[in-house]
């Protein structure tokens, strides 16, 4: 496989968008959008990862995310934003939430992790997405706030259920299956970075 993954950077701060593009361009095809409408114009089925700012002129990153998800594309979307996460993130269909500033290493790790995840089954991906939401909330909210919030509680319950389903699935795989899957994953992963 010689396919190079495509990353769409959506960021209204031009300096920052160009910096992100610059960091990622040695490894990926990078498209850059400074506005929500340009982001949607440049978005197609070739895009594997979207790095999305939440605060954009005209319409917000949250709206862009919704449109992307409605198009049924299963690409990976990370919110890369300076907005502190609140409970409203539970309504959003992102795969990761990162608060700026991010350095080169953070960004490269983020993209390669998301690409690795895109190879997993839908089941595993949705587990990661929920886990990322929980982690995001846990770093930004106090324990009291979390305990009092019903949405957070149901998120935890859902995560626990998915987790036990996955555990059951993994137990069914025998060792050779497991190794095969693992090799497959690591090969594809190196391919995308080459």
């Amino acid at each position, binding site marked *: 496989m010689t396919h190079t993954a495509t990353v769409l950077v959506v960021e209204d701060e031009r300096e*920052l968008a160009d910096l992100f593009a610059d960091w990622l361009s040695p490894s990926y095809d990078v498209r850059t959008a400074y506005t929500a409408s340009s982001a949607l114009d440049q978005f197609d089925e070739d895009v594997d990862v979207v790095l999305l700012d939440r605060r954009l002129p005209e319409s917000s990153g949250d709206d862009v995310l919704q449109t992307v998800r409605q198009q049924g594309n299963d690409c990976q979307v990370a919110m890369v934003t300076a907005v502190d996460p609140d409970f409203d993130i539970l309504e959003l269909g992102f795969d990761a939430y990162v*608060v700026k500033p991010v350095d080169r290493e953070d960004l490269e790790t983020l993209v390669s992790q998301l690409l690795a995840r895109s190879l997993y089954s839908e089941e595993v991906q949705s587990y990661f997405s929920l886990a990322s939401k929980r982690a995001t909330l846990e770093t930004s909210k106090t*324990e009291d706030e979390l305990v009092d919030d019903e949405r957070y509680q149901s998120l935890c319950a859902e995560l626990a259920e998915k987790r036990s389903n996955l555990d059951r699935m993994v137990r069914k795989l025998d060792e050779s299956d497991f190794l095969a899957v693992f090799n497959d994953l690591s090969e594809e992963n190196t391919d995308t970075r080459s």
Partner: protein
Amino acid sequence: MSAVDDHLAAPVTARRWLVPALGVTLTGAALAHFATHVSPAPMVAVATILPALALLGYGLWFWLRAPAGARGDAVFAWAIGGAGVVLTLDLWAVLVGAYGVEATLPHVVIQHVSTGALGAAIAGTYSDRDRWRAGSHLRLLRALDAAMDGIAVLDDSGTVSYANAAFAEGYGADSPASIVGEPWQVCYPEATRERVSAVLEEFDAGAQEEWQGTVTARRSDGTTYPQDLSMTALAGDGYVWVCRDVTGREEREQRLRVLNRVLRHNVRNALNVVLGRAERLRERLGDDEDVDSIVTAAEDLLAAGEKARQLERALEAGVGPEEPLGEMVREEVERVAEEFPGVSFEITVTCELEADSRLRLAVRELLSNAAEHNDATDSMVHVTVEPDPPMVRVGDNGSGIPEHERRTLAGADETPLRHGSGVGLWLVYWLVTQSDGAVRVTEEGTVVVRPNAEPIN
């Protein structure tokens, strides 16, 4: 508040001795009369002296017990008036010969005058008290009317039975008369009505007697505004409401929130560019002093922003759960020690106390502050947690907190030229004082936090 507790208009207590003095005079007159008359009938003597003695007794009681609201000279005037009326009647009776020729006029006169004075003194006491009570009631009403806060009294069906001018103004009415007799619901929009009704139901069920909160109120023209409302149940007899328009405060808070958020957002974006570019410069130039200093400055700024956010969250969250103080401090020492591997930490805990968990952040700040700004070659931070009184001491072998920064921990007014250099010590001051503790710095520069801590049950 009962009228007896009301000392708003306590009368002058001067000349309370006037009534007993009158009693002494009349008793003296009676005794003198019988001393100059040979062998009077005992019954006649007793009937003449007793009223004068009773007046003397009442006068002494009045003098010593000082019944609230009754003035000594007013009661004296009543007594003299009463005596005068009786004396006039007596003289008239003598004139028309009503007592007959055999009556001994002087003791009849003394007896009647004493009785008249006694009765009038008692009546005067009550009259003066009532007058005073009415006066202080009026003063209270005027005070309520003049209060800047809106005050209303509701009967148990929720109808406004009294409203002061400020309450009427809050509703947009010209005078209290246009709101009295209305149900309280007219002053609030639907959402607030539900909330307040729920509280009133709890009042009626006896679950609570007081409630305070910020609600949305409505004027008669339909506009709404934020209002601080406190409600008190009057033991089965309606409610008292006190309210205040807090539009100014809410606007200030909103301004702070927005500025905070926008600043933090923009700082993060801008510093991301600064740090990213600095990283690229470093790739090009290798190790470079200028780049290092750009990165350090940017990171400090980010850390200050992050601290401000943590503080905001901790203060907004209100009182935190209680946590064992010793463990809290130990965990923070471990955490900060990891961050500053070159500094050694020494911790002594000699107590089992628990305190507001928000102190954790303050302790962390003091520890990192002591570790980071320690100028000694062999840096060392020592921490003790003591029980009596509850105390957390953070000191180091450096020069301690500099003088100009200590002002922050004393909560001194900040000005553009006189303020601490960071948010860190403000964070400590606010967190400690918000959790009902106190903080000070000793001569040697050791910080002493006196938390509001309780023994662990």
